[in-house]
């Protein structure tokens, strides 16, 4: 655990504290290398690549776009709700979102 977190701090994007989950989704769904994945997400968010891992910028963006926040703020998208917005923002299919739509009869 401590070792994994060491890597996350030394080299990681920062997960939901920043935009790490979004960049990860582009690598996973489109097989994009890190440069391409970051540029894609930065373009969608309208920020520079450096700001993707800048907590101060990413925090505001996540709140503004309602993409899920790490803090307990009432009234904001959580879990599945946030993933609906992430799929739409990135233009990708998220399997669990697709399942939700089918099973909820939406």
């Amino acid at each position, binding site marked *: 655990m401590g070792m*994994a977190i060491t890597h996350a701090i030394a080299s990681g994007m*920062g997960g939901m504290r920043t935009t*790490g989950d979004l960049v990860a989704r582009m690598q996973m769904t489109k*097989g994009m290398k890190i440069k391409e994945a970051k540029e894609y997400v930065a373009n969608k968010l309208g920020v520079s690549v450096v700001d*993707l891992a800048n907590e101060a910028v990413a925090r505001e963006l996540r709140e503004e776009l309602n993409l899920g926040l790490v803090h307990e703020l009432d009234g904001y998208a959580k879990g599945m709700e946030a993933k609906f917005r992430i799929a739409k923002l990135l233009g990708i299919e998220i399997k*669990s979102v697709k399942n939700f739509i089918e099973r909820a009869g939406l």
Partner: protein
Amino acid sequence: MEKVFTRMGDASGVWLSKEEVRAELEEGTNDAADRGKIPPLTEEELDRLFDICTRREKFVSVEPGNEVVVTFDAGTLKMVRVGVPVDRSQAILIHERALGSDTMELAHIDYSYKQIKPIAHDEKYYMEQAQLGTVIPLFYGAMPNVGLYTQPDGPVPNWSELLPMGKITEAQAAQEEAVEHAERDMVYVGSKMYEGGADGINFDTTGASGDADFLAALRAIRALKEKYPELPIELGMAGEFVLGMHGELYFDGVRLAGLYPHDQVKLAEKAGATIFGAVVNTNSSKSFPWNIARAVTFVKACTEAANIPVHVNVGMGVGAVPVFDTPPQDVVSRASKALVEIGKADGL
């Protein structure tokens, strides 16, 4: 003469002169180049690595803008392994909301696809439930672990018993049969988990049982991608070199035994993997500078050959991380920075 504090591959501390550090770096990169038949690091890259190894800071990191994605093997199991009695769904949220993890992996304590098969419906339900409350991408992962298909626990004769008896043909036949079983189980479990909403399937520690293990994973990936073309798949290796336990297994005409990461990744791509987890073993008798130069040399060759993202394995005993269960942050952070900024890793 000024000495630099660094470590051996078993994490024990050692003081080296700067000349010794440089010599270790050169020896490490040359070892990788010789074994992998790949170029050694350039003088400029060695200079950069020397700087990373000899900095006085305890902890180093990448420069702003150079951050990469982190994925995990045995993701939710790690909490249990350090004695934290939390449920797996709680472990996912701890990673998502407290630890800044970019992704997470749902995993069962018996971390092999063969063992997951009888409980796949339970695992699928767990995945479905976890996905409702999770924002970060959530993999499902386990090992191909072809060795589990051997008798007395499994259905095929044990090649580790047959080989010492000189029964080469019988040992090869047993491995070929095990590949069929393993492929079937991995496709079954992978399908279940993807249909349950997994954001990706992780084949972790692939090749642990040798070339048959690697072949089974490649075939399972190809079958899953034919079934679900959009399915993200990460293929993580067990070691830097595919052991030829069979010796004559091929995938798309390429012999698997003896492949290093830069060749392994090409087969991962052909099978349909979307992320490749490269491994470079740590030599516990060698220094950290020797191990990191060697690891970066292999990883650089792999990332240059790859068209898909490469997430380097950097757990205990691989990627220049010492063979020690609490690897020191000084060398772990140095390995992290060097593999990303010189090796050009897309993730860890």
